[in-house]
């Protein structure tokens, strides 16, 4: 491996995310639900770490906590050596970008594609420069030029996801958190997007945190994988290790479900 900086790019220690008890018309839930229960992991610059687990295992809550949309009730997060919390997240926004499962919902329906991508550029940039750079990003993401003036509703699901990728790169992100980025698409589109992600990662040296329940795509894209269940990490290791020597029944089940030949 090449020269690593002294610390990992992203470090999460004993993260706890709870949803507080709430009362709805008098029905009180006495116990908080721990969506993320003492989770710790690190992501090294340039690697692709996958978080695999079934729906409700806490994967999305981790994403939201890292991005500052949800306040953890416990634990610590650090990005590039600096503590990540609600106050410091503003500084790192441009460096970590989310790619959500529902690409359509992640795009402003009243904003044209070219402008949506351009929103990632520094505000001082002149309009024609923005256009040139946005078109370039669109090209790299596999979007035809004439979509610059299109609205999200005119695009297919796969194309919308490409727009989201282009937008994330427009702001110069070095790390992407992808939450089930492909599962809403057809298989053939999934393959296209996977190829795109692989190429972008190679060209730009991206660090990826990939969240998925689909072991087959994870297997191809990720270096390491964390298996989550009920808010906890139950197994971790490199892809090769987990697939050949799963330690937990759950991991074995996931492998079997994915139809992977050992």
């Amino acid at each position, binding site marked *: 491996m090449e020269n690593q900086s002294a610390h990992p790019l992203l470090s999460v220690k004993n993260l706890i995310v709870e949803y507080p008890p709430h009362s709805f018309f008098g029905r009180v839930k006495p116990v908080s639900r721990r969506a993320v229960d003492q989770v710790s992991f690190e992501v090294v610059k340039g690697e692709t770490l996958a978080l695999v687990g079934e729906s409700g295992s806490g994967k999305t809550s981790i994403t939201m906590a890292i991005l500052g949309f949800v306040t953890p009730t416990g634990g610590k997060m650090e990005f590039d050596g600096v503590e990540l919390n609600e106050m410091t997240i503003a500084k790192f926004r441009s460096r970590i970008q989310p790619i959500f499962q529902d690409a359509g919902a992640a795009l402003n329906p009243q904003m044209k594609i070219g402008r949506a991508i351009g929103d990632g550029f520094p505000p001082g940039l002149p309009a024609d420069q923005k256009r040139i750079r946005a078109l370039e990003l669109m090209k790299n993401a596999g979007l035809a030029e004439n979509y610059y003036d299109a609205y999200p509703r005119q695009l297919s699901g796969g194309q919308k996801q490409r727009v989201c990728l282009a937008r994330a790169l427009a702001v110069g992100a070095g790390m992407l958190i992808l939450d089930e980025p492909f599962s809403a698409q057809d298989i*053939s589109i999934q*393959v296209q997007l996977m190829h795109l992600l692989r190429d972008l990662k190679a060209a730009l040296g991206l660090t990826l945190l990939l969240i998925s329940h689909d072991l087959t795509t994870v297997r*191809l894209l990720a270096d390491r994988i964390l298996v989550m269940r009920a808010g906890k990490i139950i197994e971790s290791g490199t892809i090769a290790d987990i697939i050949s020597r799963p330690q937990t029944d759950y991991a074995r089940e996931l492998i079997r479900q994915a139809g992977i030949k050992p």
Partner: protein
Amino acid sequence: MSHPPILSVNNLNVALPGARGILSDINFVLPAGSTTAIIGESGCGKTTLCKALLGLLGRKFSVSGNITIGSRDGLNTTLNPGDSDSFCNLRGTQIGLLFQETPLTLNPVLRVGRQISDLFASSDRRAALQLLELVGFPETERIYRAYPHELSGGQAQRVGLALALAGRPEILIVDEPATALDSIARQDFFKLLRKLQIESGLTILMVTHDLHTLAVAADRLIVMFAGRIVEQGDCQSVLEHPAHPYTRSLLQIERAFRNGQWPEEMH
């Protein structure tokens, strides 16, 4: 498995006036008690086909061809998919439908059990509980009293299945039922469908793009591309000897995934 067809689609063509056709020359049959899967890309017309089978196409579509449905008493009815009213008696009682995003179709302010029992005359609680048991819930009381947001994805999908089966239909159409579910919930769901099929002779038409489960879940396979059926037949045979380039590339992807290799890009 030769069973008499319970539904046959004859020369179905659907188009939007002024635009190219959405469905062209659709012909297929559903043998009773079997599971038929339809695979194809977004935009190939799968969803329009499901709507046509339920007479849910809007008036602006121009439709030709017909659908013949056999019923329990051996009578065959032939219907024109463009005539929405003629399907009224069928929906729910002879043909049931399960959507892709069931959680969104549930009323968020009503308990689940109430939403199921409301489908029965005199809000039959027992019937609702029976249905919940049928779809594999071990703790039917708890689910009965739950609100939709308290259910997991897999549970919500099963509730959707219960709702679809409430009218005891003979044919069930499921449209991408498991895309929102993770692999384990997905497998469980298809196993449940199979179990119901064996127990009650349900005929299932399944729209999906998930190749993983096809081989296990489906008896027959229909491949659609650009509004046409490009291949159909016994599931195993089609998968082993794909004729159409689209089917072949899908299989190539599936094979690559299973072996841990990068599939080629399709265009």
